[in-house]
């Protein structure tokens, strides 16, 4: 059971990375994107393909995954960010589906529905990070989440964070204040995408195999829920949200009650939580983080 808890923490870490990215896009940028699964998949496949075909080490594939995801973020972001609200949600949802559809059909590159197996384990200075024993992997993931958190936290207090907040609150007013809204939106999108790509790399290194079935629309929805459940515009809350959603997802297994609880239960519970949460606490558990600008040191 303790081992299982460690596993939940690992999944929390992977999803927390995606949730941090989603928070930049949705929480700060106010853009309703439903495409983290697509970037997640791109990151996973980048690592899987480079590591198995070209024998690259995980650490070499990681930046490629991040840059490739960022590139696709730019590609999809530039044109679609002109769209508003629901339309953006649909366009990004469509992009996520296209990614999965292409991965499933581009057999020569991705091995199609068979997926890619035997991805080598991560090594750090000759020490193998065995995902089965979990501790080392968890520690590494923890560091990655922490770094991402610090970077994003800093970003939120920067000029860009303030610009995004302004854009989210009132686009037209922000524009008339001379803020280049498209630029900042695209930045946010690229950042969010690249961190999801990194999450994908870790996912591939943890499961040691990838197949297109993992990267469904459900993943994007779950990530969005994590951000909303925790509290939009609050990076700590995104991590908390990731933990809670993962905990709920694996609750029947964690408590050992899978024999009693019907398998559909967790999805039904998940649905109920969404509805109840939206009605009673739409601002999320922790709510939006108030940033004080009076302190010195941050520009």
């Amino acid at each position, binding site marked *: 059971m303790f081992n299982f808890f460690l596993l939940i923490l690992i999944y929390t870490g992977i999803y927390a990375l995606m949730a941090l990215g989603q928070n930049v896009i949705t929480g700060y940028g106010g853009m309703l994107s439903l495409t983290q699964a697509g970037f997640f998949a791109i990151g996973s496949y980048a690592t899987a393909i480079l590591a198995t075909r070209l024998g690259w080490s995980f650490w070499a594939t990681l930046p490629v995954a991040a840059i490739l995801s960022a590139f696709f973020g730019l590609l999809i972001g530039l044109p679609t960010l002109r769209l508003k609200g629901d339309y953006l949600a649909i366009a990004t949802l469509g992009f996520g589906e296209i990614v999965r559809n292409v991965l499933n059909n581009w057999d020569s590159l991705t091995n199609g529905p068979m997926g890619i197996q035997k991805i080598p384990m991560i090594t750090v200075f000759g020490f193998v990070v065995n995902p089965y024993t979990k501790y080392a992997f968890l520690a590494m993931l923890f560091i990655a989440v922490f770094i991402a958190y610090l970077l994003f936290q800093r970003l939120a207090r920067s000029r860009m964070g303030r610009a995004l907040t302004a854009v989210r609150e009132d686009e037209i007013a922000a524009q008339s204040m001379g803020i280049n809204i498209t630029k900042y939106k695209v930045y946010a999108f690229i950042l969010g995408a690249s961190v999801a790509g990194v999450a994908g790399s870790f996912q591939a290194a943890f499961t040691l195999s990838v197949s297109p079935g993992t990267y469904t629309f459900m993943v994007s929805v779950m990530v969005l829920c994590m951000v909303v459940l925790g509290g939009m515009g609050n990076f700590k809350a995104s991590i908390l949200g990731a933990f809670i959603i993962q905990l709920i997802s694996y609750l029947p297994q964690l408590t050992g009650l899978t024999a009693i609880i019907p398998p559909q239960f967790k999805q039904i519970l998940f*649905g109920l939580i969404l509805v109840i949460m939206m009605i009673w606490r739409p601002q999320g558990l922790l709510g939006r983080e108030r940033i004080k600008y009076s302190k010195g040191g941050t520009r």
Partner: protein
Amino acid sequence: MGIAEFFQHLMNGLTLGGIYALIALGYTMVYGILKFINFAHGDVLMAGAFIGLFVFDWLRGSAPLGAWTIIAFFLAMVVSMAVSALLGMFIERVAYKPLRTATRLAPLLSAIGVSFILSNGAAWAFGTRSRKFNYPFDNTPITIAQVVITPHQILILAVSLVMMIALKLFVDRTRMGKAMRATSLDQPTAMLMGVNVNKVISMTFAIGSALAAVGGILIALDFKVYASMGTMTGLKAFVAAVVGGIGNISGAMFGGILLGVLETFGVAIFGIPTGLKDTIAFGVLILILLIRPEGLLGKVEKEKV
């Protein structure tokens, strides 16, 4: 490619499009009035199909095809429409009404939640197996100059056309329709003008869900009944609604047919691998959104400061 094959592909595309159009009408109706994507629409459709199946099988017993099976089918459809309408109103009351003044994200997520509850609830209650919905009429294909079409396909096209016209007349000509348009335009003002907004919205969901039930049953004849039947079909229909111009009733019809034909022709004539059919649909969606975000037949809305 022979001329017969071309027309066969065209026919396949049209009837697939008819299915998309059938579902898209319900989506667009709700969006048109409330500016809200009802993600649970596809799952209401699934519920409608299950209800229709149970009622039809119960009424039919072991009767052979004939007048009685057609009557039983219509009765099953009416019952299913009524129950689905109630279900739609119930969902609106519980999951969407409290969120009317919230941000746009809130009802969207709430709808996704409802969708999970419905599809997984159905899987739990009715199992995961596909169930056959028997044709209530003789579905022997008809061949016209080497192009084959089934009575069922004609029915789907006919029903979506009739539904589109009826819906259009309802919204344009009736008192309730007028109230709906007023609500769509400006809720607070409509309320001040004496429109019972709650009733209008309830009614919108009732009609949308009844339409979904009709779609569900007609689709089930061809595609069977199963718990996850609403998900992908619903998504595609939604794409169709957006392509045609969401909120626009004739747009939904047009978008559905266009999407069906494009998917079919993309694969059959332009040689895109069949596995990439979904990519065509979503690619068209993104393209349309970029060129004309309001959809092909949609109206441009000016943003006010």
